[in-house]
Structures are given as structure tokens and as C-alpha cells.
């Protein structure tokens, strides 16, 4: 019977999101400015699904973002700026000259 087949080991659904590779080698990340009109178009172009609308606002999930910069290029309102940074185990460090 098909239903009697043994259960083989398999990965837990979506488990790569827990330790994303890309975020570790990111060199820049998007910052969403006030010009954003919540059109959501960038959400369909991000390879990682790092852009999400929460509570009516666009947010970047930095744990997923790999810094490709597509969202900043695709935004029709130029509402997204890419900010250079280093990432490391202790978090996100903007380059000194870009600190405000």
C-alpha cells in the first residue's frame, strides 16, 4: 500500500530562514524613506522575501536581506536608499562617514 511507505528523513519546511546565508555576506542594506506609498511592488522583486508590510508600513527584515539592491533600483518613487555597512555576529554597523 502507498500509505505504508516508510517515512524518510526530510528537512523541516522553511528551515533555511532560521540561518540565512546571504545576510552574513551583506555589504549594504535598504532603508525605506517617507516617499514610500505602500505599492508593495518591491515585495515581488526581492529574492529573499525580506521586504514585508507590517502594521501598514514597509519593513526590511535584515536577518534575510543579502543587500543585492534590486528593491532600491525597482522602486518607482526612489523611496529606498541603500546604506553601506558591515555585518557581523554582533549586528549591523553602518560605515563611520554614513552615521548621522
Amino acid at each position: 500500500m502507498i500509505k505504508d511507505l516508510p517515512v524518510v528523513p526530510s528537512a523541516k519546511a522553511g528551515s533555511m530562514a532560521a540561518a540565512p546565508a546571504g545576510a552574513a555576506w551583506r555589504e549594504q542594506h535598504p532603508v525605506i524613506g517617507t516617499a514610500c506609498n505602500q505599492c508593495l511592488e518591491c515585495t515581488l522583486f526581492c529574492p529573499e522575501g525580506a521586504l514585508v508590510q507590517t502594521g501598514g508600513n514597509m519593513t526590511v527584515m535584515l536577518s534575510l536581506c543579502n543587500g543585492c539592491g534590486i528593491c532600491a533600483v525597482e522602486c518607482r518613487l526612489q523611496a529606498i536608499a541603500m546604506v553601506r555597512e558591515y555585518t557581523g555576529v554582533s549586528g549591523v554597523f553602518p560605515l563611520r562617514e554614513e552615521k548621522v
Partner: protein
Amino acid sequence: MTLSIKDLPQEDLFGPGNAGCRGCGAAIAGRQAMKALGPRTIVSIPASCMATLSGSNQRTAWQVPFYHTLFEIAPAVAAGIRAALDAQGIRDVNVVSWAGDAGTADIGFQSLSGAAERNDAIIHVCYDNEMYMNTNGQTGSQTPLYAITSNQRKGKQTCKKDMLAIMLAHGIGYAASASISHPLDLIAKLKKAAARRSFSYVHILTPCYRGWGIPTDQSVAVARKAVECGLWELYEVEDGVRRRTYEPSFIPVAEYLAPQGRFKNLTADKIQEMQDAVNRYYHREEGKA
């Protein structure tokens, strides 16, 4: 009814944490496609970048079952999954074989042709980065004319094989081309394919920054230029009726070709040759860009 972004599910059934290169067009295609296919979907993927970036051993970037198959057999595995579902009386599942251009048009072609000829109720998606990227970008039948690849430094000397024409020659009910630059068009086409219970074929242009020699932030922009210059036509053939789903604005083909490293050897003559071919194809007046 036209689709709107606001109607799409926010949930990602593929994507978060995938190990693709920065700006990977294939990963973008996967995310967009899963907005159409939904949670009742099973995917089989042969050796390729998509298999590598979306799982390894005990981890996966999919929320749906994903089988990593041998190179030659993704459509055959999908057909087998469909048969097993049928045997169990399960009817509400989309079965998708998702392969690169080599897994579709070259190394995987015999099993694809077999599934199409048997009219197995699966959707085959070709994500086309126009090279064998997972093994460092060799030439394949989907590499376009004159593109430089890792094993053809002078550029390819023959044309890209027309996969939609070949698949349509199998008498299949639905075939479409798509591009990651036009996600709503792509999603609408996959929804159509999923609503049918017969073999469908969807061919998606998915630029790859490494193979194409473009900055990582240009993957979507360059795919859009491919559509707008007319070199990548967006169309579908549904039960024998062909429809262009997007009218290009006919930017000069040079705007698409020139920024790409893989076309750096192109001379003005060759660019004109490609412009003339586009003009002829769309019955546009000579000289008009």
C-alpha cells in the same frame, strides 16, 4: 479580472533564507511563482542552481514538498508524483517540475518531451538564465547568439533554440513565456496553468548577474529591457490560440545588450543585425528603433 498585488498572499512559500547569489533571478522567479501556485503544491527540481540554493540535506527554503531529482528526470518524477496522487484520490495538488535551461532544453529534454507527449497533468517551469550556471556558466541551447560563456570566450555562434515552439509541437494545451520583471503577468500565467489538468509549460527569463556580467541590482531591470526591446516576447498559447500578453515599447536592442558583460564583444554591425531581426519579427519599419 486583472490581478493586483494587494490580492496576492503575503506569505512566502519559497524564498526566505535561500542561498542564492545576490540578486538571483531564479530565486525571484520562485517567490513570484509560489504566489500563484499556493500551499497545495509539490515541486521536483533537477541538478541546478535552484536545487542548490533552495535546500541541502536537512534544510529547505520551501514551505512545500521539494524533491531534488537527478538531472535528466524532473518531469518524469513530477509525472510519477501525479500518478501517486491520483492513486490516492488526491485531486487538489499542483505538481510542478522546475528546471533550469539545461534541465529543460538539453540534459532534461527527453523526460520533458515524454511528459508533454503523455499529457501528464503537471506544470513544467523552465527558469532560463541562458547558461549552465551551477557548473560555472557553460553554453547551452538556450544561450543566445553571440553571448560569451565560460567555455566560449568568443561568444556563441548559433541561435537560441525556440523551446516554446518545440513544446507546442507536442500539441500541449498551454504554453507561455514570462519574465521576472513582469510578476503579475507571470503569476496570471501560472494560475492559468494550475487551473488546467493537463500538461502546461511556462518559460521564465531569469537573469543571473554572474553569467550575464551585470551588477547585482540589475537582474530585474535587465529582464525588463529584454521585454521592452522585443527580444523576449511575453505571450501565451492557450488551446491553440496565441496572444501577446504585453506590448513592448521597442527600446533599441542596444539598451538591453550593451550593459551586459557577456555581450561586450558585440560590434555595431551585430547589434544592428539583431535590431533588424526584431524589426522583421514585429513587422516594424526598417530603421525605426
